[in-house]
C-alpha cells in the first residue's frame, strides 16, 4: 500500500535481536502482588474489596470512577492482605493506593466469567461497556481507557482502525511476539474494535524490522479484503499515533486534535488482544506481555506477567543482572522512564523493563550548543528544539510556548542526535511541568475568585433582604404600632 513521508525522525540501533527470538513465557506467580488502583490516565479506582477477603482471579478489586477511569481486577485468586500505600511504578517512587494480594496458588477464575458467543451481534455500546468493565486501557504505554476511544464514533466520522504494531522503540519485542504467537486473537480483537467503532477498514501497521509478524498478520488477514497489513519503514518515532496516521494517510492530525479528526482511531495490538479476551472469554485485563531486555540482563525474555508482580521477580526470572546496570527503565529507551527501584509492581502500561549498561546509554556531560541544527532536522513535529531549550533554560516559559512547546510529543529524537549531549527533553519536561503548575495555579485562583464573588453576592443578597425587611417594617410602623417578630423578642431577652 502507498505510504507517505513524515518529517524528521532518527534511526536508533534497534537491539531487538536481544529478545526477538524468545517465545512468550508465563512468569510464575510472585509471593505478593501489588495492584495499584491507578494504572491508567484519569481518576483512580476505588477499592471494592476488604482486607482479608478471599478473591478469585478476575474478581473486581477496584471500581472505575467517572467517565475517564478504569477498574482493576484480581490477577490471580488469593487473599487481600491490605489496602494501603505502595511505591508506584513511576519515576517519582511516591506511594499510591495499592491493593496487596497474596496468591493462593490455585489461580482460579471467578465463577460465571464467560464470553460472548458472537461479539459482532452486540451493539457497539455494549462492546464498549464490556471493554470498560474489563479494565482495558491503551497498552502501548499511554494507558488511556480504551472504551472511551471506542466511543469516539459518536462524535467523529470514522473510517479506519489502525493497529499500531510499529513498536519503534528499541529493545521492545512484546508486540512483535504477540502478533507472531497470537495472530488470530489480535486480528479478532481488531475486528471487534472495528465493529464497535463502526468502521470497516483495518490497517495493521508493522515496521519492516518485524518480517515474521508482518507475514503472520498478512497470512491471517488473507481472506478479508477490509484488513490490510502495512510495512512501515524503520524510523523512530513511527509509532507516534499522529505520525503513523500521517504515514498511512498522508494527512496530519490538526494541532491539539485527535487522529479521529481525520477519521482514524489507533489501537495497540496488545489492546486488541485484551479486547479479544474480554469479549470472547470474558476475561478482564489481569496480565500483560513485558519485554525484559538490555545489555545488563542475563537472559532477555518476553514474559506474560500478572499485573502487580514486582519488577524484581521479572529480573530474577531472567537470570538477574549480568552486570550492574547504569539505568533501569520502564518502557523503551527513547520515551521510557527510570524506575525508582525493583520493588515496584508491573502495571497495565508496562511494556518493557530494560536494564541498560553505561555503554548502551552513552551518557556524556553536556557541552555548549553549537547550533548544528541536527535537532531541527530530527524533530518530527517541525520544532526548533535548540531554541526552545534556550528559552526554557533562561526561564522564559512564554517564549518556549510560543516556539511550540505544547506541540512537542516528547519523543526524544532531538536529544538522541545532539552532538553536545544537551538534555533537551529534560528542558521541555521542565517547561511542560511548569506550564501545568501555572495552569493549576490559575485554575485555583479562578476558583477562589469565583467562591469569593459568590460569597460577596450571598452577603449582599442577605443585606439587601434585611434592608428590604427593615423598610417594610418602617412602612408598616408608620401605619400602626410594630408587631414583634420572634427575632426581636429574642433580642430583647
Amino acid at each position: 500500500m502507498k505510504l507517505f513521508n513524515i518529517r524528521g525522525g532518527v534511526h536508533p540501533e534497534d537491539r531487538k535481536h536481544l529478545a526477538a527470538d524468545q517465545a512468550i513465557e508465563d512468569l510464575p506467580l510472585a509471593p505478593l502482588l501489588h495492584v495499584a488502583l491507578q494504572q491508567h490516565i484519569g481518576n483512580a479506582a476505588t477499592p471494592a474489596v476488604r482486607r482479608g477477603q478471599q478473591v478469585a482471579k478476575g474478581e473486581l478489586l477496584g471500581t472505575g470512577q467517572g467517565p475517564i477511569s478504569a477498574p482493576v481486577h484480581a490477577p490471580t485468586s488469593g487473599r487481600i492482605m491490605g489496602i494501603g500505600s505502595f511505591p508506584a511504578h513511576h519515576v517519582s517512587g511516591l506511594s499510591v493506593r495499592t491493593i496487596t494480594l497474596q496468591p493462593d496458588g490455585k489461580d482460579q477464575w471467578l465463577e460465571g466469567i464467560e464470553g460472548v458467543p458472537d461479539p459482532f451481534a452486540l451493539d457497539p455500546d455494549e462492546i464498549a461497556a464490556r471493554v470498560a468493565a474489563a479494565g482495558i486501557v491503551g497498552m502501548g504505554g499511554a494507558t488511556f481507557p480504551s472504551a472511551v476511544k471506542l466511543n469516539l464514533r459518536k462524535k467523529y466520522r470514522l473510517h479506519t482502525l489502525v493497529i499500531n504494531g510499529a513498536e519503534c522503540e528499541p529493545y521492545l519485542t512484546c508486540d512483535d511476539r504477540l502478533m507472531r504467537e497470537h495472530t488470530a486473537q489480535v486480528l479478532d480483537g481488531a475486528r471487534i474494535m472495528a465493529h464497535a467503532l463502526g468502521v470497516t477498514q483495518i490497517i495493521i501497521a508493522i515496521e519492516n524490522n518485524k518480517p515474521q509478524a508482518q507475514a503472520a498478520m498478512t497470512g491471517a488477514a488473507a481472506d478479508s479484503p477490509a484488513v490490510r497489513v502495512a510495512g512501515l519503514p524503520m524510523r523512530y518515532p513511527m509509532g507516534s499515533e499522529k505520525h503513523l496516521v500521517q504515514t498511512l494517510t498522508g494527512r496530519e492530525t490538526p494541532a491539539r486534535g485527535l487522529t479521529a479528526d481525520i477519521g482514524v482511531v489507533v489501537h495497540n495490538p496488545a489492546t486488541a488482544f485484551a479486547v479479544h479476551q474480554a469479549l470472547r472469554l470474558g476475561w478482564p485485563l489481569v496480565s500483560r506481555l513485558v519485554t525484559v531486555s538490555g545489555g545488563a540482563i542475563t537472559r532477555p525474555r518476553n514474559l506474560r506477567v500478572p499485573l502487580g508482580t514486582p519488577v524484581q521477580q521479572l529480573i530474577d526470572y531472567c537470570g538477574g543482572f549480568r552486570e550492574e546496570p547504569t539505568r533501569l527503565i520502564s518502557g523503551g529507551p527513547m520515551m521510557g522512564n527510570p524506575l525508582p527501584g525493583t520493588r515496584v509492581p508491573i502495571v497495565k502500561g508496562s511494556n518493557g523493563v530494560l536494564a541498560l549498561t553505561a555503554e548502551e546509554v552513552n551518557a556524556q556531560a553536556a557541552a555548549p550548543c553549537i547550533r548544528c541544527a541536527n535537532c531541527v532536522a530530527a524533530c518530527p513535529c517541525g520544532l526548533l528544539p535548540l531554541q526552545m531549550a534556550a528559552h526554557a533554560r533562561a526561564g522564559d516559559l512564554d517564549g518556549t510556548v510560543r516556539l511550540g512547546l505544547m506541540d512537542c510529543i516528547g519523543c526524544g529524537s532531538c536529544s538522541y542526535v545532539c552532538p553536545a549531549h544537551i538534555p533537551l527533553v529534560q528542558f521541555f519536561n521542565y517547561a511542560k511541568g511548569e506550564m501545568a503548575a501555572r495552569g493549576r495555579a490559575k485554575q485555583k485562583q479562578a476558583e477562589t475568585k469565583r467562591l469569593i464573588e459568590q460569597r460577596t453576592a450571598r452577603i449582599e443578597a442577605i443585606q439587601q433582604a434585611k434592608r428590604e425587611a427593615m423598610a417594610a417594617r418602617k412602612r408598616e410602623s408608620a401605619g400602626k404600632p410594630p408587631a414583634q417578630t420572634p427575632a426581636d423578642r429574642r433580642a430583647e431577652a
Partner: protein
Amino acid sequence: MYSDTPIAGPYAHERTSVSRIMVLVVLALLPATLFSLWQFGWPAIFLFLITVGTCLVAEAACLRAAEKPLRPSLLDGSALLTGWLLAMSLPPWAPWWIGVLGGLIAIVVAKQVFGGIGQNLFNPAMVARVALLISFPAELTRYVAPAPLFSPQAPGFGEGLAITFGLDGSDMVTGATLLGQVRTELGQGHPLPDILPGIYQPWSDAVGTLAGSMGETSALLLLLGGLFLLSQRVITWHIPVATIATLALAATLMNLYDPAHYPDALYHLVGGATLLAAFFIATDPVTSPISPRGQLIFGAGLGVLIYSIRTWAGYPEGVAFAIVLMNTCTPLIDHYVRPRIYGRDRKGAPIEYADDADAEVTR
C-alpha cells in the same frame, strides 16, 4: 546500583560528539591542505603552524581568564579548526605576525569575547581575515605562484624561515591571484578574451596550480572534502548548493549579457575561495541559520554577495566580506524563517480539512 537520577530520556544516544564533527571537518580539509602546503613549500608550512598554534594558545588563555575548564573546550577541536581555516585564507608566504595577529583576532575578538564556542555571531576566521585585509592590504594581497616543495624554484627550509620571519623578503617573487589579475586588466579596459587565455586554464587550475591563498588553490580537492562532509552528514546540502547555484546563475546571466566583461560560471567556481567558503566556512553551524529554508536563503544571499563584490565592489575577492555580512543576517533569518509545525499551517493555526467525508485511505 543503577542511577536513579530522574533526568529525562532518551537513555540511548547516537555515537556523536562535538569533537567528532570537528575531526571530520579537519579530515575533509586535509587533502586540500596537504596539497597546498606542498605547493607553497616551507613558508606556507610555517605560517600554517604559527596561525593554528596562536589560535590554540589564545583559546587556552581566554579560557583561563574566564575561569572555564581548559580540556573540554580545547579538545573539542573548534579552535584548531578556526586556526586551520584562517591559515587557508591567508597568502601562503605572509609574514609570521600576520598569522599571530589573525589568530588573536579570530579567537579573542571574534569568539571568546562573545562567550566562546557556540556564542559567536560571526565566523571567527572570516572576521580575522577581513580585519587583516583592511589593516594590512599590502601583506594580504602579496601572492606567489605555486612552487612545489623540493622543486628547484622552491625555497629551502632556511629560506622559508627567512621569508616567514621577514629577515629576507625582498626578493620574493610576487604574483597576483587570478581574480585580482583579471580585475586589474578589466579595469585597464582589456576585454576578457584577451586576458584569460594566458593566465587561466579552467580544468588544470581546478586541480590546483593557481596563485592564491592556500584555500583557493585546489578547487577539486575542496570539492572532494565537501562531498565527504555531505556523505558523513556533518553538513547538509542546502548552504553549499544554494551558494554555488546562485553564484553560477548570476555569473551565467551576466556572461550571456556581455561575455567580454563578465567571466562565466566555471571561472567563479574555480577561481578564488568559492568552494572553501561554500562547503567549509558558510556551513559553520554556529553562524548559519538552523532551518533548511533559512539555510537556502543564507546560501543564496552569499552567492549574490560574492558575485557582486567580485564584479562591482573594490576588492577582487569578496568571500570573507560576503560571509561576515550574511552572518549578520542569520539571527534575522532564524527569527522569520521557521519550519512549519506538525498539524499547523504556516501561520501557526491548526490545519483544517475542507471535507472529512472524503478522507479515504488510498489503496
